[in-house]
């Protein structure tokens, strides 16, 4: 019980301090909306193009909402030494890191709901398999957050965290089938697409929203789950190696 009091306090503190601040909302929402709007206008299609674009918009909203703040805040707290206070608290390190990422996961999920709500006004979403979309949104949020965590615990400075996360995020937008189908990519780049967690999340969303998915759903979920586990364990290992050495 005592551990859970600490857990929720960290989640709530981070939500209040970081995730509900206007600059973060702009990164998490305005940027993906602008990005998708660009693709929408360029396609020259009408409202019927909303549904095929919605999985991409949802995924990018989650990716940017989770990673933009987490990678920076953990590095910033580490620089300010307030992260030390958390490391000194009597809670297991794994639970501490889950708490530290909890706010970002919840924020990522909330970010996904905004484009879905917008999509509901513009298109007919009655055919969407919500029982698949909702766990996929949750899992994409977890994987993206852990990617942000991995970035945060691999660098020392805030600017390095920003550079490193952009280095991962921007190629991911082009390579994971968000707006350009993987099979339309050059053959040399296709294996790289399958090494990215978002590829599997986007595939689930495409399948659940308009029936066009490339891989079996079970494989998508398993791969996304595996990415979550690997990124989290690698992050905890990095903390032990770099910060408690």
């Amino acid at each position, binding site marked *: 019980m005592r551990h859970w009091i600490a857990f929720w*306090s960290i989640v709530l503190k981070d939500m209040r301090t970081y995730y509900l601040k206007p600059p973060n909302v702009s990164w998490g929402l305005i940027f993906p909306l602008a990005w998708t709007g660009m693709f929408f206008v360029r396609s020259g299609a009408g409202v019927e193009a909303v549904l095929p674009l919605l999985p991409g918009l949802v995924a990018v909203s989650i990716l940017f909402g989770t990673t933009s703040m987490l990678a920076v805040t953990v590095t910033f707290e580490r620089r*300010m030494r307030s992260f*030390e206070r958390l490391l*000194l608290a009597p809670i297991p390190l794994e639970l501490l890191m889950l708490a530290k990422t909890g706010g970002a996961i919840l924020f990522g999920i909330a970010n996904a709901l905004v484009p879905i709500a917008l999509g509901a006004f513009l298109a007919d979403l009655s055919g969407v398999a919500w029982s698949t979309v909702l766990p996929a949104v949750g899992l994409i949020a977890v994987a993206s957050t852990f990617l942000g965590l991995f970035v945060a615990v691999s660098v020392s400075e805030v600017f390095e965290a920003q550079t490193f996360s952009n280095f991962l995020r921007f190629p991911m937008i082009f390579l994971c089938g968000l707006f350009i189908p993987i099979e339309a990519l050059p053959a040399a780049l296709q294996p790289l697409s399958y090494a990215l967690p978002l590829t599997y999340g986007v595939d689930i969303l495409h399948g659940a929203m308009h029936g066009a998915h490339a891989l079996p759903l079970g494989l998508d979920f398993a791969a996304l789950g595996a990415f979550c586990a690997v990124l989290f364990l690698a992050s905890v290992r990095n903390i032990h190696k770099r910060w*408690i050495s």
Partner: protein
Amino acid sequence: MSAAIQVAHLAKRFDGVTAVDDVSFDVAQGELLGLLGPNGAGKTTTLNLLTGLARPDSGSIRIEAHDCTRRPRAAQHLVGIVPDESNLYEELSGFDNLCFCAALYGMRKRERRERATELLQAFGLTDAAHRKFETYSKGMKRKLTLAAGIVHRPPILFLDEPTTGIDVAAARGIRQLVAELHRGGTTILLTTHYIEEAERLCERIVFLVRGRVVRIDTVHNLLLPERGRQVLIVSLADSAAPWCAQLAAAFPGLKVEAAADAELRLESAAPIRVGPLVRFLEERGAEVLEARRAHPSLEDVFVRITGVEAGEMRKERERAAAGA
């Protein structure tokens, strides 16, 4: 009395540099032990090893009944830590910072609110309770950081340079609070490079130099050999250094050194006669402003035992004060 903390043969190297080298000491229940040494002596690294923020290369740490070498986080619920720099959240208020720190130790909402209110009152910060931490002065920040360290009523407290970088009045306030905690039975391990602070607060002192323990003893025992020594401080209008050799030659048995630019420090096992000394200096053109007897201090003991010049420690103190 049983030991609250037992440290044996602790060693730690960073990138080929030995930060802590075969350090051993015990802290008894309710004792206030000081780790005294210049910057870079290994004080903070020793604390980091004790708190689990760093892993020792060798040696053992035991806190109460917990083997912290094998399980570095095992005793974290028993320990309060006040780091050398305030590390609370700038954007939270003082009250919210304390409540958050209490929650990290599993305290329930009502309990943590009551404790935060109690501590803010005890530390004279009630008026600033709902102001953001970033608006606090350095002294207030140190006080709140100390309050955060004891929010869960730990029986053991680690204090890392608690008065560095704050003004004299704030430092005095912090020392009073530390003394009160000690009187209340808290076991305290304090690191400092302020010799007077260690002398005033600590029961026993560990002299730490270049990562090694040079001496451990009570303040009383450390000062004992100095009791018979006579010290005279002579202030001059001009530079003191040129007079050292002349005085040493003219007054055998006197140890003479320039304590500051225009200050001579004379030390002897026998009583020092002031008249002949002043006459000697004035006949040779020196202008003597003042001559006063001084009691041998822990600083003298520290310099004699460690070989670290008092001036080196004083410069650190001045640098810290300049940063305040």
